[in-house]
């Protein structure tokens, strides 16, 4: 025979509560930075990965190694009938903006990082077509997110960047060299790496 204390509702709820706390404690750290040291069973580790940020798709997986390192690379920005091209040095020569923004992956991890680059809204304005959305194309030959669109509300944000640096260093290949998008409030899959072209939508 078991006593009431042995299998009471209170005991059961206490057990469930402890289990829920334990499960949360060992996983939540992959997105909540202060809990990171406890995140034993998170697929991602805060700070693990090149330049302190985890990577989903490497440059080799995406098949962009040759294109991204080509000396002929330039970011093409098209809009209002004009076509502009910026080499990485030309982008670095423009006024640089720093932003601290997270990569927030739909897989459940997020990591905040320091980014530096050119404001997307300045490149869009250079085409003479301000306050527009854009279509962003990556160098990668295929993939669901090779071509994505960004609404004017994201383009207008002053922290939306064509990023050239990550955590104080030039973007690594796997983080999107020569240039990538970083914007606030967008899922990680839309933070396009290895930029090829930006079309200003009419």
């Amino acid at each position: 025979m078991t006593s009431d204390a042995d299998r009471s509702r209170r005991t059961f709820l206490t057990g469930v509560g402890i289990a829920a706390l334990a499960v949360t404690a060992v996983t939540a750290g992959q997105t909540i930075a202060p809990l990171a040291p406890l995140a034993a069973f998170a697929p991602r580790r805060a700070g693990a990965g090149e330049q302190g940020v985890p990577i989903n798709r490497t440059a080799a997986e995406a098949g962009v190694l040759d294109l991204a390192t080509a000396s002929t690379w330039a970011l093409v920005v098209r809009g209002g009938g004009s076509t502009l091209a910026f080499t990485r040095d030309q982008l670095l020569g423009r006024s640089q903006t720093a932003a601290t923004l997270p990569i927030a992956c739909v897989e459940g991890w997020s990591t905040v990082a320091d980014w530096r680059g050119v404001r997307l809204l300045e490149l869009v304005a250079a085409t003479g077509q301000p306050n527009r959305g854009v279509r962003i194309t990556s160098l990668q030959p295929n993939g669901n997110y090779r071509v994505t669109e960004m609404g004017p509300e994201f383009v207008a944000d002053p922290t939306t960047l064509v990023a050239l640096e990550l955590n104080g260093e030039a973007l690594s290949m796997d983080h999107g060299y020569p240039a990538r998008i970083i914007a606030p409030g967008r899922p990680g899959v839309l933070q396009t790496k290895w930029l090829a072209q930006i079309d200003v939508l009419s």
Partner: protein
Amino acid sequence: MRAARIVLVVLGAAAAIFGIVLVLATQRFDQLLSLAAWLAAAIVVHDGIVAPATTLTTRGLDRVGGRLTARARTVIRMAWGVGACLTLLAVPLVVAQARGARNDSVLAGDYARDLALLWGAIAVVTVLAAAISLGRSRRTSARAASTDR
């Protein structure tokens, strides 16, 4: 107490309804289908693996644990439940790691070691809690015996 319970139930139900409405309003049909599959898998894993495992062990505990206090048996049961949940989290990671990670930043932990460490910690806490409860019940029964005289 009764009023507090009613308030909690109403709040909980309202939150659940809000969540359901939000899911139905924002997700496409195919997304809802994969959500349903995911939820069904959670039930299968619970009813098919976790519940049988914990039931079997608690039955075994009832049979061999007669010398333990009821409280000590409760502590062991809770610890087993917590350990089962943590194991459930770790197993897919260990399996995925054995199959090879996608790149260095994925599956960066030593999950098998951490699972062993956590089970060790659970065992230590359980033994301590059970020992404390055993000591307390001995003292209580000793005191009860002395007041009987």
